[in-house]
């Protein structure tokens, strides 16, 4: 990746729309803008929106009137001079403007380059930068909220008291080790084990929230299977109609009529309605069967739909058997019918999760959704509490926890403090990798302000 120069890029998604925003960042941002506006005296106040004509450099004609906003370094997204042009959202127009800027000496930004500059210039911390990415990729409201919280520095805020507590344990230990000739209180390093234990639990709770966090970000894949006429598709449609998801493109899946994303307690769930699984010589049907097999293979959980108003058939039995090799929920459909009897499902098997539903009137759907989520969500976290969504953070928190654990076990064994401290410093380092600080100097400062050291 090149790192020099003034970069430009389209900041809004490609496609026709009302507005397209072009962002320019770098030393020459203003220069380039002046060239584009054919106004060498253009000297905007920062953070003011101005309406200006934009010229084609070849033909000299006006091609658009744009809203121009100048952000003066360092008070901009990247920390450099930034100019944002809000133009009409016509793709050929935007392309022409971008080309003009390139003609004047800009360079197309690499993916993520704006954010990388923001991090380099200290405008965003590493975790905040990751949050930006997460925000852009978020599929549901909850994930958006989570990413926004991280952007707001909430992760750092949560970790700071943990780091402070760790320092409170390290400082007396270190002092008793290094400053043996000084007149330090005797009980200086009491309660270490207790304090470490409290600290470990806090970190473990945060790390555990990752499971849920990952769900928030990446979502769950669920396949509906069942023989024809059990009401699979009706169930599918009914689930969709009560959804509140932001419907977006999910990379890696084909967007066709048999897969949709719904929102279950903030977690994006991709539900795939499948074709029947009979062997068939019909080509079209074979394609459908192929899709079905794939959906089942990819699924995190299978919902086996049975017709609860009839007795179980052999085919039903096969289906349930296949489903229960995965996480599985059995949806006993048509609870609205008089002939519905829950005992019809008894023969399906023991230890099955069974939910009675009606695709017709919607009853039992909430319970079904709850059962779908249950095997994957951690603890008693509600949608509003803070979760870790990032694998990097999860990994670092796990390592922090392990390091603390190893120190804790050493406290028991009565070993010399520097071995205990080794684990604590490791833990501190891992925490620092998440938020980015704490050097040995900090510890020395703490020691000297806490204890009177020095002969």
């Amino acid at each position: 990746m090149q790192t020099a120069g003034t970069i430009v890029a389209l900041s809004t998604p490609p496609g026709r729309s009302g507005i397209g925003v072009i962002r320019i960042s770098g030393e020459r941002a203003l220069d380039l803008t002046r060239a584009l506006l054919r106004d060498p005296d253009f000297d905007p106040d920062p953070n003011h929106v101005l309406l200006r004509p934009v010229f084609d450099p070849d033909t000299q004609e006006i091609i658009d009137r744009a809203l121009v906003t100048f952000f003066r370094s360092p008070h901009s997204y990247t920390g450099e001079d930034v100019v944002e042009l809000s133009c009409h959202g016509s793709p050929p127009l935007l392309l022409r403007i971008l080309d003009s800027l390139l003609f004047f000496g800009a360079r197309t930004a690499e993916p993520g380059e704006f954010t990388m500059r923001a991090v380099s210039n200290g405008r965003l911390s590493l975790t905040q930068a990751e949050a930006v990415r997460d925000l852009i990729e978020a599929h549901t409201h909850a994930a958006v909220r989570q990413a926004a919280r991280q952007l707001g520095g909430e992760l750092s805020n949560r970790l700071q008291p943990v780091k402070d507590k760790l320092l409170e344990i390290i400082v007396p230990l270190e002092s008793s080790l290094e400053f043996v000739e000084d007149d330090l209180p005797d009980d200086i390093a009491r309660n270490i084990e207790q304090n470490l234990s409290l600290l470990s639990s806090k970190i473990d709770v945060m790390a555990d929230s990752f499971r849920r966090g990952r769900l928030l970000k990446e979502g769950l894949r669920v396949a509906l299977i069942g023989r024809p006429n059990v009401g699979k598709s009706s169930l599918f449609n009914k689930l969709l109609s009560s959804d509140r998801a932001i419907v977006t493109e999910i990379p890696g899946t084909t967007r066709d009529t048999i897969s949709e994303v719904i929102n279950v307690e903030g977690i994006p769930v991709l539900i795939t309605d499948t074709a029947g699984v009979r062997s068939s010589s019909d080509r079209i049907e074979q394609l459908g069967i192929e899709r079905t097999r794939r959906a089942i293979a990819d699924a995190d959980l299978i919902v086996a739909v049975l017709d609860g108003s009839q007795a179980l058939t052999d085919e039903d039995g096969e289906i349930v058997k296949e489903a229960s090799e995965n996480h599985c929920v059995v949806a006993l459909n048509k609870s609205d019918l008089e002939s519905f009897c829950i005992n019809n499902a008894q023969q399906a098997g023991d230890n099955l999760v069974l939910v009675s539903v009606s695709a017709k009137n919607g009853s039992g759907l909430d319970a079904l959704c709850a059962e779908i989520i249950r095997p994957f969500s951690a603890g008693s976290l509600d949608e509003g509490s803070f979760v870790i969504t990032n694998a990097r953070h999860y990994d670092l928190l796990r390592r922090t926890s392990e390091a603390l654990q190893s120190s804790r076990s050493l406290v028991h064994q009565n070993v010399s403090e520097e071995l205990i401290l080794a684990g604590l410093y490791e833990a501190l380092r891992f925490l620092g990798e998440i938020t980015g600080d704490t050097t040995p100097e900090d510890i020395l400062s703490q020691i000297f302000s806490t204890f009177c050291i020095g002969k």
Partner: protein
Amino acid sequence: MRESFDEDFDVIVIGAGHAGCEAASASARMGCQTALVTISLDMIGQMSCNPAVGGIAKGHLVREIDALGGIMGRVIDRTGIQFRLLNRSRGPAVQAPRAQADRALYRTEMRHVLEFTPNLHLRQGVVTDFVIKAGQILGIKLQDTRRLRAKAVVLAAGTFLNGLIHTGRSTYTAGRAGEPASIELAESLKRLGFSVGRLKTGTPPRLDGRTIDWDVFESQPADERPVPFSFLTETIEQPQVSCHIGYTNEEVHRTIRDNLQESPLYSGQIKGIGPRYCPSIEDKVVKFPEKTRHQLFLEPEGYDTYEVYLNGFSTSLPFELQQELVHKMPGLDQTKIIRPGYAIEYDFVDPRGLTPFLQTSLVKGLFFAGQINGTTGYEEAACQGLLAGINAALSIQGREGFALRREESYIGVLIDDLITQGVDEPYRMFTSRAENRLNLRYDTSDARLSPYGRNLGLLADSDWLRFSARRDRIARIRTTLLETRFKRSDHEYAELSRQIQNDLGDSISLAAVSQLPSVDASLIFNFLPSGVRSSTSLSELETTIGDLLYHGYIRTQQLNNERIRNQSDLPIPASLSFNRVSGLSHEMVERLERIRPQNFGQACRIPGMTPGALSTLLFFLKTSRN
């Protein structure tokens, strides 16, 4: 203007303090004709304040100096009058000896060692300037018009550069009480363009021991089994004395508080920055008002003198006040001060202008070592002197420079910290400054560093033989521990079980027993096979057991280090202009240009470098190599 030189040398060392003596000794023993020039030959090896060597981290430095072939350890072993091993109850990694010295004996012993060093020539004189041509050192000028030629010069001027002593309101120039400051030399440095700053330090009053009521104080005796600093010292032969412990009290504190305006530091008279960890008594009383008493140590200055050093009472209050305060302390109510305490300010040069070999970037062939680089402490100075002397010699001999890594020595940590981060207060070594503390054990300094000393020519054949023999013995003990197993049926097993009061499984190796909590090395000693036991010393057994104990921890650290080192060794081209690395803010570029790190690892340690800037730099380095 004279052009000729009176004498010709390979290396000239300016200053015969702890840095200067190590530098001169090393350079001479490496075969260079070396002159040690000092203002006063009688003050060679003088300890400026506390007549003591060692302690936590400092003791480690002395051991490392010794392992490399330096001389501080041998000198203190012969002149120490109270040896104590600190942290004796804790692991081998953080144990360190500390010894009070007979101040006068230390000087004479140091001079004796130097006089018997081949290629080493002592010269008395005041250095006023350098002779430099085209950025290369040619020699030095002395006040009495002598000119001495040299291919390399090591400046180890201690606190003498523009030294200014404060006692109460009286101020006078001095390098140490009773010795003149180095004024002209200090001005030469400024003229040459060196970045000069100001630091301060202080020293307590010395007392007349005949007027002290010793019974009032708690005695602190020497260790029964004094542990020497040097690997070459078998035992400490000379008689040991005791120190004594006392305390200040509220009355003393009150008097100090009432008279703070008389203290040069608090009145603003002193501009230099002092160290947080050697605070004056004024500092202590002001910063920790809740403490009702501060600890003091009464340390004898020597066998044949009644002078006593009042450790913990560094002060620059006026003499009458010092005397009044002393009288307010029980046991000292009749005590006379024979030398007042004082604060001293002095020039230092920003160490970020040094290469890892302690050579200045401004003048080729000019090396700086010791307090001039912003450190405090004899040990901190000595290890720099050793490295500077070695590198001065190497540079003349056309050999590659010698630097130590952080992972392998405290000396490496110290020098790297200095040249990368600079100092904003006098720099003292602490074990916590080393990320690799577990590896930098006191008792493994020889294993880590003696091979270097040998390669440099600083370890004589006999020294090297001793090192090799020790290394071999430790290896043999290790094998013995691992291979000696006791089964339930063995009578040793029963004995061990009884003593440890634990079940040991069906069979257990001696190595495993040694790792059990609360098992002492002496216990293991008794269970060694007699053939091995007879050639094993308890301390070597302790080292071997320590190796086993730390092995696991160190391995993890080593893995981490390799991971970091792969990146940290990535070189940064000397000609790189950091503003070419776009994506770096002006502030980051400025920091990098200031330090001009030689590799990525060094860049990582520059204070204030953001992770983002480092990633950008790393990315740039990796991609621009292609």
